[in-house]
């Protein structure tokens, strides 16, 4: 089947973007709410307690999806930044800008839920474990990225510089990840949801987790669309103000 790739870019045209997101946003919002509630209620009330960890295991339904999102949002920002650098689509870079705040929040949620779980299980809120440390570093990267956006007045300059930072930051984020692994052996358990592992988490926990993950993904899509729309509107408002000021003179 031949796909017309050029037609794909039309979806990113600001006007077309506004019109299709206007219709799609409520759908995503409702779906996100449904999945979120379903996944969490299922996970919290309708799964058995773990035989060793007791009820504390249930924070897993917040911890794992938010941690996954924290990493994947940075990857999405990398892709949209690249699209901005190559094709100079304004919507693309605004999506990256909108995603950064959400990504930072997800990282924070993962860190905090992890700390809450860590106290009864590991006996400590914080340990300089590779995974925990990597997430702290990821949070620093998000903060730096957002701070650079805030610091520059000209939106195109800001878009260019943050995109370059995002590219270089991605390399260093991966580098830090492995450097940290080298630096300290950890407490954190291995991945419990990978496709290729022999032993994964049991199905009773796996299905609600899957729903919760879907909820987080949908929530992210909803928020990023909403925030991108806000950014586009802010950009338009700014343009209108400038035009008015020119007209007054």
């Amino acid at each position, binding site marked *: 089947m031949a796909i017309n790739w050029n037609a794909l870019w039309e979806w990113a045209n600001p006007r077309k973007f506004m019109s299709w997101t206007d219709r799609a946003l409520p759908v995503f919002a409702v779906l996100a709410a449904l999945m979120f509630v379903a996944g969490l209620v299922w996970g919290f009330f309708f799964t058995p307690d773990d035989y060793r960890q007791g009820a504390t295991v249930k924070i897993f339904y917040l911890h794992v999806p938010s941690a996954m999102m924290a990493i994947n949002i940075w990857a999405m920002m990398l892709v949209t930044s690249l699209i901005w650098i190559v094709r100079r689509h304004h919507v693309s870079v605004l999506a990256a800008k909108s995603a950064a705040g959400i990504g930072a929040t997800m990282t924070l949620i993962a860190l905090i839920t992890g700390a809450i779980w860590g106290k009864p299980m590991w006996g400590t809120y914080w340990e300089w474990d590779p995974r925990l440390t990597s997430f702290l570093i990821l949070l620093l990267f998000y903060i730096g990225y957002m701070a*650079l956006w805030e*610091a520059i007045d000209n939106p195109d*300059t800001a878009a260019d*510089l943050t995109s*370059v930072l995002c*590219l270089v930051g991605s390399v260093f984020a991966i580098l830090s990840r492995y*450097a940290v692994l*080298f630096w300290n052996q950890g407490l954190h358990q291995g991945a419990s949801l990978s496709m290729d592992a022999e032993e994964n988490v049991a199905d009773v926990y796996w299905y609600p987790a899957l729903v919760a993950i879907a909820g987080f993904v949908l929530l992210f899509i909803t928020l990023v669309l909403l925030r991108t729309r806000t950014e586009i509107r802010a950009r338009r408002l700014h343009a209108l103000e400038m035009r008015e000021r020119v007209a007054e003179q």
Partner: protein
Amino acid sequence: MIRLFWRDITLSFRSGGGFGLGLAFFLILVTLIPFGVGPESELLQVIAPGILWIGALLACLLSLDRIFALDFEDGSLDLLATAPIPLEGVVAVKALAHWITTGLPLVIAAPALGFLLHLDSAAYRWLIITLLVGTPALSFIGAFGAALTVGLKRGGLLMSLLILPLYIPTLIFGAEVVRRGAGGFLVGTPLAMQAGITMGAVALLPFAAAAAIRVALR
């Protein structure tokens, strides 16, 4: 390019150039540590590798805004950008000059400060080697951060926020080399990793920095 190199070096030696400030900062930082953690030599010996590396890193950070900011303000950066040499080369030369005037003195001074912190005698060799290998990466990563913030009014604090996370891998491997050296372990792996980071930074970051400067000058 060679002239640009000498110009940067001469400028940093002249008054107001900031040469030696980084060194003095390094000295003060190391002096403050015993006041903070207590004068027990065993404790100091344990933390010395980390302190020396963090001190070198912060001293390096202190002088980074000089790489491009002054040239940006008086317009010579515009001239350099339109000069018949590639901007990437300009960045690389300026980063190299920064390393010679900041990184190299730190390498030379570090053993003396290690003495103050009761650094293990086996570690001196590795301290010098790892600083020699690692500080160029600090200068080149720093040049990238300085390029990102060159057009900003108060870019200094933001620059630290952007650069310090990028310094993490260099710091980890650097301090690890000294720690292993002090304990008499093999240092090959972290040293090789650090050399890799330095070479990667020297080879690639001038391009990113030049791209950022072009944006700032637009």
